[in-house]
């Protein structure tokens, strides 16, 4: 069975590394993009099965990236997991049209929550 690919879009390098560590231990093939421009390039290159996305990124915000992804048929179908400090200010209902399936709160989540969320959206 193909190993699912996860793209982590997170500008805090050490937090991205932490997500990668947890996902790799759980058997996923994870890749990091530190900003939205790198993410767009990597999405074209690796065709991730799921994207973990921080909201406030260096350069452009996640919302610019979400708009970009929705502009194309193939990328618009990639499930998105938002992982943010601003989770309490976001509504999953408002973000569903952008492919967002889950919202994780960085301030309260457990390390394994990211694995559970990925597993859940890939079901």
């Amino acid at each position, binding site marked *: 069975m193909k190993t699912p690919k996860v793209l982590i879009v997170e500008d805090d*390098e050490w937090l991205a590394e932490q997500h990668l560590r947890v996902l790799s231990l759980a058997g996923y093939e994870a890749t990091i993009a530190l900003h939205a421009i790198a993410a767009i390039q990597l999405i074209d290159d690796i065709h991730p099965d799921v994207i973990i996305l921080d909201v406030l*990124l260096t350069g452009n915000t996640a919302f610019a990236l979400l708009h970009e992804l929705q502009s194309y048929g193939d990328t618009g179908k990639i499930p998105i997991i938002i992982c943010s*400090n601003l989770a309490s200010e976001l509504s999953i209902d408002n973000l569903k049209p952008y492919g967002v399936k889950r919202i994780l709160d960085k301030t309260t989540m457990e390390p394994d929550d990211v694995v559970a969320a990925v597993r859940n959206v890939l079901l």
Partner: protein
Amino acid sequence: MGLAPGEHEQFYNGPLNDGLPSIVAAAHELKSPLALVRQLSLMLETGDLPLADQKRMLRQISLTSERALRLTSDLTRSVRLSDALFKLEPINPQQLCEDIVRELAPLFTAHNRDVKLVSRKHHLLLVANRDLLRRIIMNFSDNALHYTENDSAVEIKIVSLKSGNIIRLCVRDYGPALPIDTLKSLQGKLANCAPTPVHARPQSSGLGLYISSQFADAMNGRIGVTQHRDGATFYIDLQASQQLSLL
């Protein structure tokens, strides 16, 4: 219409009317390092990581905590600015920046980045408060660390302007360029000496820059930002000391 004393403005609207930076902005700035420290600690608690990973994570916890503590210390200092008289004295910026580079080197190395001082042949003197100027440059450098690309260097540079009357200390990062609207917003906010709104600078409330502008004001200085194709330069302009010309 003004706010009643002690009444807090909204996060996006800047400082409290009593001059204190927004508590919400401070909370936002501290969320990221605390969330990271928490994630790393929880991971370490599992105890089944290779020793090298454990050491690396512990180092990251220490360095992240130090950055967060610098912010809390700056906040305390900025709140007390109006109560205190700051000693302005002739300072050799080269020496000060060398100390800062030495202090920040471990943090930058841990991020696979470098910080370096562009050296000058002729030393300059400026008039400033040593502690406040140090905090400003540390703040710019912290900011640059976040924005600069992997394996590249942040450059600190000292420039003489206006026939030597103004000394500019610059911190240059090499990363994704700031979007034009962000740059304009930043320049406007810096000019007005108010915190940038949370969405004007991605992932930051601009609190650090706001505090820096307060520190600069206390020394009759001015901070600003210049956009480049491949990054940005944050700078502070200060009066040159005339002491050398008297020699």
